[in-house]
């Protein structure tokens, strides 16, 4: 169901990422200020954008779940947020490395984007504990959806608040003027962004496929168990009974 088009997608994301990395190292010029260090920009900024979009997309899928009451939307929302958390960790690590290289500190408080990202990340880290400490699966889905929507709305407000409170020192590469990037850098950046977006979608589909498969497996196992229980004692064992059924049931 979810596995359709997974193979071409994986190939496309692999190819785009390889192309992006090639461009980063051999095509894009070194930054005049920061030299080679600035290359981390081509990884840090795309994954930050992709993971924030993933959080917001998770919120939108949660709205869709609450509207349709279709569990597959809940699954989609869960996987999107879960992947975005993983990417978010990557954003914080690469951002920290970049800050260390460029400003000399591992962590810089007067830099709104990094700080607001940390707050958003801390909030979303609660998503999984919240979800899995509710037992009833239907209620679990609903509560997780409510959380995803509230947190999705929180993302822009938080960015406004943190930006208002601080001085502007983050390299505003994508400013309103379109940035002062030369064409070669912009091309590299866009291809890298595309690559990470494709990677995100591929991983998302992959996890959905695996979740779907394991759910189906569970359902089949349950049916097999029921079949075994219903058969009268002493009946000849069918070929499937090589699977060890729980002996304690009898």
């Amino acid at each position, binding site marked *: 169901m979810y596995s359709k088009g997974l193979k071409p997608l994986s190939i496309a994301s692999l190819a785009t990422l390889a192309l992006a990395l090639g461009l980063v190292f051999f095509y894009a010029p070194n930054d005049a200020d920061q030299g080679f260090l600035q290359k981390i920009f081509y990884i840090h900024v795309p994954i930050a954008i992709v993971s924030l979009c993933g959080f917001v997309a998770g919120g939108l899928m949660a709205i869709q779940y609450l509207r349709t009451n279709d569990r597959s939307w809940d699954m989609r929302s869960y996987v999107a947020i879960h992947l975005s958390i993983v990417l978010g960790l990557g954003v914080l690590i690469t951002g920290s490395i970049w800050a260390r290289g460029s400003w000399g500190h591992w962590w810089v408080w007067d830099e709104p984007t990094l700080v607001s990202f940390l707050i958003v990340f801390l*909030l979303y880290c*609660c998503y999984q504990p919240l979800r899995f400490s509710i037992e009833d699966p239907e209620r679990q889905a609903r509560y997780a959806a409510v959380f995803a*929507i509230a947190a999705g709305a929180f993302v822009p407000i938080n960015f*406004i608040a*943190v930006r208002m409170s601080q001085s502007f020192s983050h390299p505003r590469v994508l400013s309103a003027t379109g940035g002062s990037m030369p064409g070669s850098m912009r091309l590299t950046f866009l291809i890298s962004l595309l690559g990470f977006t494709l990677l995100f979608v591929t991983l998302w589909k992959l996890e959905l496929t695996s979740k779907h498969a394991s759910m189906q497996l569970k359902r089949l196992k349950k049916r097999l168990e029921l079949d075994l229980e219903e058969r009268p004692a002493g009946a000849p064992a069918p070929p499937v009974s090589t699977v060890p059924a729980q002996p304690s049931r009898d």
Partner: protein
Amino acid sequence: MALFSVTVFVLFHFGLQRNSLEGDLAAGVFWVTLLLATVLGVNRLFVVEREQGGIDGMLLAPIDRTAVFLAKAAALFLYLLLLELIAVPAFDILLLGPDPYKPLPALIPLLLLANVGVAAVGALVSALAVETRARDLMVPLLLLPLLVPVVIAGAEGTSPLFTGSQSPHELGKWLGLLGLYDMVFLLLSIAVFDFLLED
């Protein structure tokens, strides 16, 4: 809650080793203490109904679920007001130095707007967390990151009040941010609260 806040002021006095605070340090101590005290209130907001089945009773009554949310948020708002009625004078007397009453009038709109936002978010978080197993752990983990904008606006807005220099333009900016926060989370909570009570 009020007792807790006074205790925290005493802790800050010893932790910071200061007899009086001013400026941004005072604003930080004040707002962080208020929000930590809020966590206590939010923790208890839905617990009684949950343990004694009051939620089922409310759902049987022919009322809109939004009314339940608004009632809970209003209750939290009143709790916060009570907390501040005690915590603000205590803070003034204990930590603000010789001339404690000057910043009070300008503090009132900030506190009221902050209370609205905190009440909306707090009621939502409380309803979310009450069904989880580790309820007491989930509330602060969910609530405190969500309240970061309130701390930012509150602390930035009050720190000039506590130093004595007050530029009205700055205060308006932070009041605007709090207003935006209140509006978004009030509307959002009203929109999604129905799904938390559905059974």
